[in-house]
């Protein structure tokens, strides 16, 4: 290629890069604002969030589970982009996450336990807490008996409008077997529950005192949600339950939470994280502003082998696709069979019908931590890949998939307030780093000028060019990929500039060889280039290989380093091919090149000329 054309390509790359820096990827602010790379936690400080593990049953989580939680949170932070976050366990129950810059939003969902549960929907009732407390008829009634015999919970006025039935995708089908009799019934009885922990029982006793013995007894007797349509005053006798906090509500059995009409959706939502994680108990939860009762969890997040976000081609909606483990898919098939083959008298059928209107099969709720993501009607016995639908966008679908892939955090956390933290190193260190860069570059330049004379200026110019390209790439990638530049990163780039100068030395020493062998500078340049190119490509290929492998395999700071290494090597190759070589070609055709004083080739030239006399 003509040297001029190569330089033009380089110029094009340069212009495009800086156009991107100034106008693309969410560039905003003044001219200088757009030129700021994203600096790391150590240089500019950032945001810090503390997650406090909830103590369950008076027990502090074990060291191992805290370390496991730390790893999962770290993976989640790193999945946000190439940022160098710091995640440490502090004391015995805190996890502190620090991120560079202002990052409150990103820190919000990190500690979500991501306990996924698949539970059969077995009961539904409206959130009637308001009407239960203030019945439309003003006359108070003190002695309404609980309507124990109420049949199916009828959707009341405040029940959700029935939406289009969501469906579970995936390969349905499979042979139809005799439906096993569905076990779950909405019959509440405290003894059917898994034994509650001592701490839970203690809270339950306190709650019992708070609501009063009479109300407690009445609530315990309920076997189905109170039917307020037949007796609008029936809610009154549970008035005290409306005053309970989320934690106190959580201490009640799922049946009580579900049946007592005065317990509102808000109270259920206020329950602490992890309140309905127990796989062996039923769970009451709010879905589409109705209260629903869910069966024991038959399938859990650990049964999922791989989750990935997908865009459903037909509906244009984001879904999360799930693959189950061997054991998981057996359990999943059993659960979906139970839902699919339920008859119209099954409680789950009744519940699904009251939630969705007309249904043919039962629904399985996909529960993540405290909330139901979706509760699709099961259209077949699902054995393989299945999809979760819900109100996902690209980000939330990826987030859920990441959370499922990295596993559930074994500890439940409550997040403390986000705080700002200052830089540990600060501006002096940054300045010192830049000073070191200047000194290093200065030394290289002096050495190059001393050794290669005017050709040193080619090294010097290409160093400046590498620097500018690297800087532009850093600014742009910082904005679009969250690539964060720490002090170590800056030092890495300084070093890489030195290594980049190496490739020039290889080229130039080759050139000396060629001239020494008696070639004219003009013919020596292309020959030296052809040979040096081979060496330079081999050597850089190894570095790029190192960068790619480390980037794919490693995590955290090492990954950030690998990215920087790869970036600087690619830029080095760019400068070598599109700048040094064409410049040298052009240089070789000038007279100055031959002058010993100018090119630094003088001694070699002289030697090449004197050699024959020796012979």
């Amino acid at each position, binding site marked *: 290629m003509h040297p001029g054309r190569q330089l033009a390509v380089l110029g094009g790359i340069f212009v495009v890069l800086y156009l991107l820096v100034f106008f693309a990827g969410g560039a905003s602010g003044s001219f200088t604002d757009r030129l700021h790379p994203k600096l790391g936690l150590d240089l500019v400080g950032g945001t810090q969030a503390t997650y406090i593990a909830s103590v369950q049953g008076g027990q502090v989580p074990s060291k191992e589970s805290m370390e496991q939680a730390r790893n999962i949170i770290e993976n989640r932070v790193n999945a946000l982009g190439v940022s160098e976050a710091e995640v440490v366990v502090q004391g015995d129950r805190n996890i502190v996450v620090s991120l560079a810059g202002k990052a409150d939003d990103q820190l919000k969902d990190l500690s979500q336990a991501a306990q996924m549960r698949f539970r059969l929907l077995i009961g539904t009732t409206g959130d009637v807490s308001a009407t239960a407390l203030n019945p439309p008829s003003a006359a108070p009634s003190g002695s309404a008996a609980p309507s124990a015999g109420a049949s199916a919970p009828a959707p009341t006025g405040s029940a959700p409008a029935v939406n289009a039935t969501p469906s579970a995708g995936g390969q349905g089908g499979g042979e139809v077997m005799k439906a096993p009799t569905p076990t779950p019934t909405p019959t509440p009885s405290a003894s059917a529950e898994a034994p509650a922990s001592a701490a839970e029982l203690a809270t339950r006793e306190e709650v019992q005192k708070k609501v009063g013995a009479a109300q407690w007894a009445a609530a315990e007797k309920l076997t189905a949600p109170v039917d307020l349509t037949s007796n609008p005053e029936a809610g009154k006798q549970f008035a005290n339950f409306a005053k309970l906090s989320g934690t106190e509500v959580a201490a009640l059995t799922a049946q009580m939470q579900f049946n007592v009409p005065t317990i509102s959706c808000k109270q259920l939502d206020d329950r602490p994280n992890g309140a309905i994680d127990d796989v062996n108990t039923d769970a009451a939860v709010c879905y589409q502003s109705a209260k629903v009762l869910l069966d024991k969890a038959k399938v859990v997040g650990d049964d999922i082998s791989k989750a990935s976000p997908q865009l459903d081609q037909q509906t244009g909606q984001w879904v999360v696709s799930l693959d189950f483990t061997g054991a998981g898919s057996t359990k999943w098939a059993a659960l979906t069979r139970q839902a699919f083959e339920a008859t119209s008298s099954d409680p789950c059928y009744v519940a699904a019908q009251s939630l969705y209107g007309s249904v043919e099969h039962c629904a399985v709720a996909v529960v993540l931590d405290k909330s139901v993501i979706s509760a699709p009607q099961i259209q077949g016995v699902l054995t393989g890949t299945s999809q979760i639908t819900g109100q996902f966008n690209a980000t939330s679908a990826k987030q859920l998939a990441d959370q499922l892939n990295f596993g559930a955090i074994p500890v439940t956390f409550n997040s403390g307030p986000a705080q700002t933290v*200052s830089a540990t190193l600060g501006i002096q260190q940054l300045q010192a780093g830049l000073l070191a860069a200047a000194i290093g570059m200065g030394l290289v330049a002096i050495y190059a000028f001393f050794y290669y004379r005017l050709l040193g200026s080619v090294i010097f110019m290409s160093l400046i060019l590498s620097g500018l390209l690297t800087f532009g790439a850093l600014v742009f990638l910082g904005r679009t990929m969250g690539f964060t530049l720490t002090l170590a990163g800056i030092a890495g780039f300084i070093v890489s500039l030195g290594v980049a100068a190496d490739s020039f030395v290889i080229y130039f020493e080759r050139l000396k060889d060629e001239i020494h062998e008696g070639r004219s500078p003009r013919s020596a340049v292309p020959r030296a280039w052809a040979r040096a190119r081979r060496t330079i490509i081999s050597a850089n290929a190894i570095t790029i290989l190192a960068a790619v492998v480390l980037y794919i395999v490693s995590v955290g700071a090492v990954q950030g380093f690998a990215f920087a290494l790869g970036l600087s090597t690619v830029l080095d190759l760019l400068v070598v091919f599109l700048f040094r070589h064409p410049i040298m070609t052009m240089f070789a055709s000038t007279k100055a090149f031959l002058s010993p004083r100018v090119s630094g080739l003088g001694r070699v030239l002289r030697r090449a000329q004197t050699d024959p006399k020796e012979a």
Partner: protein
Amino acid sequence: MAREGLASRLYAGEANVNVIGKRKIWFIVAAALVLLSVGSFAINQFHLGIEFAGGTSFSVPAKTTDGRTLTQAEASDAVERAIQSVDPNAEVGAAQEVSGIGGNGGSFTVRASAMTAQQAEAAKTALVEDLKVPSEAVSDDQVSAAWGGQVTRQALLGLVIFLVLVMVYLVVRFEWRMAVAAISSLLLDLIVTAGIYSLVGFEVTPSTVIGFLTILGYSLYDVVVVFDKVQENTRGITAGSTRTYSEAANLAVNQTLMRSINTGLVALLPVGGLLFIGAGLLGAGTLKDLGLVLFVGMGLGVLFSIMFAAPVLTALKDREPRIKAHTARVLARRAAIRSGDVAPRAERSGRNANVTESDEAPALASAAPRPGSRPTAKRNTNRSGRPGGAGNRPSGGNKRR
């Protein structure tokens, strides 16, 4: 030639240092270094930083009892004084200011190496006295490693995968013997660098580990440069009988010596700048950690690419039957020349006859390469073997124009 100094000969790539011939010495030195390093791993182990080992975190309020607001530097210094009064060997990190998003009443946290509860208590007491801060507002906490075991595991896995892939690449690009020599030189570099860290007791921080990984690419870079030249010089060497493989390799090493020194210097200058600023002006921290490990590793990389990689290569090559036979033939021929049986063909052409006697084999007159011998295996040289060079390449005679 002899009248010129070493620098000048280096410049021209004619230092003629006998590196390969002394390979036994280098192997012994390398073995000793590896033994020393491994021994040190076992006995001294590594001095791990807080990021790896975890430690104690102190929290100090920004407001003192007499209403003053502390600066970050004050807090940092005071904690360091307090901790070192308790445990002189403790490492103390820099202070970090923590404040609510609202911005009311911040505090400083400082991380230090792990200490016992009593030590932490003593340090807290000293701190309260020193800074005059309310004692109940000063707290200490154990902190875990920020650099989890997972990061190290994955980095090591990456290292292993890289070594396998680069081995494959080198086998394809060169040959398996060169690949083995290059990888063993890299491993030697890594082991000895780690050994120096262990032996001297430099602190290992995440920056150190990252610097360590940088050596990976750099060390191989040097070896590739040397081997590229060796490969060029020895292409088709068995066709001729003037020079053994080892001699050709030694020549390549000499020819690349200046290049190695140059590339080494050019790469080490910025690292030296980092080290100078990091250690000299700032005392400690990221810049020093990174500068130090790179300086040691890159320096050794340059050295080993010459002193170890090439000798290992020749040692392996000398075992190859083809090369072995060729070496024997060259030596036999040399003995014959000495006894006058065979007239050395190219003798009369003298030093300037930079000409090959065949396409590939070097035709240097003397039995062994002399100081100042140039690479001669040129592909498009004249095929006749006639001195004077009527080939398609400018030769000594018609160089001047």
